[in-house]
């Protein structure tokens, strides 16, 4: 049954990346390269941890209401990622600060915020290990579909995940449909491709940029929440999130700015992240080499896409450029 195991772990590894890259794609489609995504995902994770910690220690694991156990961390996570998104918007849209610098600063800031609150909570919980375990909350988050067990291997592979995993896929599909098939999507793409054109066509460029960036940040933040509540089983330790944020950004390029392709890409990246555990007799160095492959694949895709030079696969033309209407 190790193949089933492998596929399950692959999905669980891939889902945080999918959240991150769907969020980043929506943001980039508005012309904003948000390199703060790793920080935002980290903040999304700690937001969930703070909410869960307050509720779990407040009422005690045995008195928790399932709906609240999910809702409180969820709202805390969303609120904190939204704040991060708003900071980024205010700096890059309203003040037209350099997007790369702002994004990188936000990532540094987000990791700092996460570690600060993480460290504080660890101290509050007076645990012997430098981590917090929120297993009760995590169990609520991990509740799978009841019929998964009855369907054997198929059920294990397809239906054994928590609601956030399915949410990730649904969000990606909705985003993809929205971008391709709706007026809002058309307007959003126009804003990212050529804000001056969108503006002249009467589209509120600033509003689209704000909404896209904030919604993108919230979605990315959910990736952090999923990671902590599902993948990590509710155990927070500082810097445990690793480089998943950057992998999400890489996945955006890999999927050539298409959320539906990102679903497959996230599964591939997920598989590449864990495959070394399923190949027997690997040396340490070989394992590290395999872990490198997602980045390598991204570079290869970038090379192929750039070489083929198909206009539809290129990043939005206005990506990274601030827009000011009266600029001459």
């Amino acid at each position, binding site marked *: 049954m190790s193949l089933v195991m492998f596929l399950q772990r692959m999905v669980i590894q891939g889902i945080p990346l999918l959240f991150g890259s769907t969020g980043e794609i929506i943001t980039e489609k508005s012309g904003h390269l948000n390199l703060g995504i790793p920080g935002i995902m980290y903040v999304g994770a700690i937001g969930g941890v703070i909410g869960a910690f307050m509720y779990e220690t407040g009422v005690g694991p045995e008195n928790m209401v399932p709906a609240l156990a999910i809702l409180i961390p969820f709202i805390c996570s969303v609120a904190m990622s939204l704040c991060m998104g708003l900071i980024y918007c205010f700096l890059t849209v309203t003040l037209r600060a350099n997007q790369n610098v702002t994004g990188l600063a936000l990532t540094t800031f987000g990791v700092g915020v996460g570690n600060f609150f993480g460290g504080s909570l660890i101290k509050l919980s007076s645990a012997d290990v430098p981590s917090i375990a929120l297993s009760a909350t995590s169990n609520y988050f991990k509740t799978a579909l009841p019929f998964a067990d009855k369907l054997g291997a198929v059920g294990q592979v397809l239906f054994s995940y928590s609601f956030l995993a399915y949410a990730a896929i649904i969000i990606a599909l909705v985003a993809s449909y929205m971008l391709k098939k709706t007026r809002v999507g058309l307007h959003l793409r126009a804003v990212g491709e050529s804000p001056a054109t969108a503006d002249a*066509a009467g589209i509120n460029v600033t509003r689209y940029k704000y909404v896209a960036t904030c919604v993108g940040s919230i979605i990315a933040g959910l990736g952090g929440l999923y990671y902590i509540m599902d993948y990590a089983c509710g155990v927070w330790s500082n810097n445990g999130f690793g480089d998943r944020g950057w992998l999400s950004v890489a996945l955006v390029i890999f999927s050539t700015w298409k959320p539906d392709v990102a679903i497959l890409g996230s599964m591939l990246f997920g598989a590449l992240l864990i495959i070394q555990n399923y190949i027997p007799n690997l040396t340490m160095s070989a394992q590290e080499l395999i872990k490198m492959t997602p980045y390598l694949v991204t570079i290869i895709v970038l090379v192929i896409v750039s070489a083929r030079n198909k206009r539809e696969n290129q990043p939005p033309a206005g990506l990274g450029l601030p827009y000011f209407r009266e600029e001459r």
Partner: protein
Amino acid sequence: MEKIPALELKNISKKFGSKYANKGIDLKVYKGEILSILGENGSGKTTMLNMISGIYFPDEGQIYINGDAVTIASPNDAFRYRIGMIHQHFKLVDVFTATENIILGTEDEGKYDLKKYSKKVKEIADAYGFEIDPDKKIYEMSVSEKQTVEIIKVLYRGADILMLDEPTAVLTPQETRKLFDVLRRMKADGKAIIIITHKLHEVLDVSDKVAVLRKGAYIGTVNTPETNESQLTEMMVGQKVVLNIDRDDPVDPKDRLIVAHLNCFNHEGTKVLDDVTFTAKSGEILGIAGIAGSGQRELLETIAGLQPMVTGGVQYIDPATGKVEFLRDKTPQEIREMGIRLSFVPEDRLGMGLVGNMGTTDNMLLRSYLKGKGVFLQKEESRNLAEKVIRELDVVTPDAEFPVRRLSGGNVQKVLVGREIAAAPTVFMAAYPVRGLDINSSYVIYHLLNEQKKNGAAVIFVGEDLDVLLALSDRIVVIGSGTVTGIVDARTTTKEEVGLLMTKEVRKNA
């Protein structure tokens, strides 16, 4: 009862920084009327249209639509008042189809259905006699197709007041005629049309009234049937310009640049220059005529050392020593190190010629940065040169550090030409140096070319206006589809002869 204007501006002003781009503009346009706006580069025509279309907001004054005072704070407001603008630089999303661009920003009841919209686009196109494929992507389109999309875009939104910013600048004469037919049809349909163009004969051809701006100020409006070219020119420039271009006989012409059997391939491997042979002589202006895109650009870039995929030869004969140098496969840097003073004013001024975000001083430095000693830049010389260029060529700029990107087209060109002639070139090449420039700036450029000729440089001038080519050049090389179809004496040839040569090769290939 007096007719109410469809659009009226009263005392409109707009400042950029401390400089007025528009000052005290009064303007009226009625339904079923075409109004031309005439003015030199930087006289504020585009700024004015941008205020009417809600891109800029006026600092002073009042706009009236059908007699009602209105505030146009955004492009959406402009649409609400049924104002449509066709920009000089097309506002289209490259990766979208024609239909997607046309419906952009519109809201309508019911489902988002591209097929339905495509049909509506087609209907509008048929009604006014446009040819368009609604599902074609913009980046696959020619310039005139893009313009068609722009016009249909405003018609789709039901505009009653149409504004076109230099619509003919990018069109062939044939396409221009088609456009004017469409404009006349729209005028008959009761639309009010405002059109900006530099070409006086077009103004006289298509418009009912002409409004003239000069340096941001409103000069006056005249009825087209009651005016003529020289009156309009005078209103535009404020003083009489001599309409004929000087041409002295070449003094002691000697072979300077020999281009022999030049072949050049583009990145797709297509031959863009085919066995091009000619000689440029010192002290003369060699005009290069041809339909746009016939290989003029590649030819100049080959000589300047910017085109790598070349066979054939380019020889330079040193005026002092008579030594022959071979320029092929040399980089611009190597050519300069050989002591050859070759100046090149490229077609793409802000792309290849200047760095838009840098000031005049820093742009001067681009030519001489290797001259300094040590690791630090010596800016003194460049600053002096910048100030000299600004003073002598009358560049309108707040100071020498002001980003050239934000200057008007004519001033950008003056900065570029000023830098290139400062090197005292022995070969001076200019590609479309007066494109987009008003009459006054154009004459400044012609004068500068003549000065280079007098100084003994071999001047190569790629132009598009045949009248100018015939009046300015000594000899004309005609290029058709990358081959030389004829070399004629500009003093004796006729427009018809050159025009025939330009299309000769094209016809053979087709």
